[in-house]
């Protein structure tokens, strides 16, 4: 157990590798109630989110979800987040460790008819992830989850409990995230019902350790590791959620300037030789000189190879480029590969 963002969280239940493979092969459940949820109401709610986030909210319609980010004026990243279009309101889902910072940042920028409500403490969140997640949840609801496209959501009941369910997740597998009232009785009912429904798939609880290895195998960024206030979304490979042409938003001017000046570094995937694990903060050596840094690394349970994400100079950011990672004094050969490291099935 570790303390994380004010919650007591399990790093693992049965073991990171077993939990990881459980999600890749059948289904696992993550209690990610620690994540933050904000509700944004008011006539100007959508215009406000359009100005505060990098993606284009006008492309959303009711029932859709969008991956996005918030930037500082200098283009550094405040947080990455999900934007839920709930008709006349917006729900944002933010990283647990950034709840207070994000809420303050948003509050400082409110203009017009906008009301922000922090619903984090009253919202429970379970992520049900893996190829058998649909079959598991379908047993507990009348909702047509089978027809729910990726990054869409529905409201209804699962196990008789009112909830919002979205086809989203942080694993690269088919999966769902279920938001409901944070009440211990309801949470226990929901948890027990899901585990009963998934019993034949050997459904298992998944800890923070496997959450990290699962997301890393598919190249998803983790705030605080791969992205933070010193990195911008363009160099982090998040250009696809950074719509510089959508009009004014916080950080846009700096990002446009950075793009025009030419990016200096890029976040890439590395396949690292040997079995010593590359980890956050280890140096990347290019032509004998420290030139980059590992932001995340692990032994991939599926590939049984060491993988990493690292910021490297643009000149050596294409797949195939070779370099070394300095792992506790030893320079270990590595090469740039495409991410995701494994095929996604989300």
């Amino acid at each position, binding site marked *: 157990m570790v303390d994380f963002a004010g919650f007591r969280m399990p*790093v*693992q239940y049965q*073991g*990171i*590798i*077993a939990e990881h493979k459980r999600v890749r092969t059948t289904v696992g459940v993550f209690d990610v109630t620690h994540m933050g949820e904000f509700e944004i109401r008011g006539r100007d709610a959508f215009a406000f989110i359009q100005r505060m986030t990098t993606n284009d909210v006008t492309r959303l319609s009711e029932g859709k979800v969008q991956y996005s980010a918030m930037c500082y004026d200098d283009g550094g990243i405040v947080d990455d987040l999900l934007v839920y279009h709930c008709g006349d309101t917006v729900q944002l889902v933010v990283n647990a460790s950034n709840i207070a910072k994000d809420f303050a940042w948003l509050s400082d920028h409110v203009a017009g008819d906008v009301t922000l409500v922090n619903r984090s403490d009253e919202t429970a969140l379970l992520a049900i992830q893996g190829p058998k997640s649909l079959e598991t949840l379908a047993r507990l609801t009348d909702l047509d989850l089978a027809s729910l496209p990726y990054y869409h959501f529905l409201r209804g009941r699962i196990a008789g409990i009112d909830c919002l369910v979205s086809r989203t997740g942080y694993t690269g597998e088919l999966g769902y995230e279920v938001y409901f009232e944070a009440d211990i009785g309801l949470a226990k009912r929901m948890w027990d019902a899901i585990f009963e429904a998934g019993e034949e798939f050997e459904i298992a609880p998944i800890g923070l*350790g496997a959450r990290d*290895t699962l997301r890393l195998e598919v190249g998803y960024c983790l705030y605080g590791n791969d992205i933070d206030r010193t990195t911008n979304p363009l160099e982090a490979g998040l250009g696809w959620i950074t719509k510089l042409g959508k009009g004014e938003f916080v950080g846009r001017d700096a990002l446009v300037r950075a793009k025009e000046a030419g990016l200096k570094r890029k976040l890439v995937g590395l396949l690292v030789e040997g*079995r*010593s*694990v590359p*980890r956050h903060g280890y140096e990347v050596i290019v032509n004998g000189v420290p030139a980059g840094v590992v932001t995340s690394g*692990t*032994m991939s*349970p599926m590939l049984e190879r060491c993988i990493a994400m690292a910021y490297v100079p643009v000149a050596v950011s294409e797949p195939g480029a070779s370099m070394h990672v300095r792992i*506790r004094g030893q320079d270990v050969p590595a090469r740039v590969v495409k991410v995701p490291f494994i095929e996604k099935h989300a």
Partner: protein
Amino acid sequence: MDFPKELKYTETHEWVRIDGDTVTVGITAYAAGELGDVVYIDIPELKHVDKGEPFGSIEAVKTVSDLYAPLTGTITEINPAIGDKPELVNSDPYGEGWMVRITIENAAELDALLDAEAYRGKVGH
């Protein structure tokens, strides 16, 4: 948690099985549990080690930790099985998951090792 009575322990979570002037060394069930899934054990060479000196490292998914020589002597054997199956350290830390054999030089150092109950007291299990 299991801390066999016939073994001795260090504060850095190694166990020691004493057999004359040869000792077998591994890490405790507590250490293996704290590390989580072990994916690689790097013990570079048979060599002389001083008590407390790192003789290798153990890589788990989440973290990496040094291995410390519990006693002064010469490493004479490295468990060949843990090269291919590092998970033995998790599944059988006091048996198949042993790491090295050391021929010790100074039997007086044995007195400083912890017995099972003292080690249990240190780790609080």
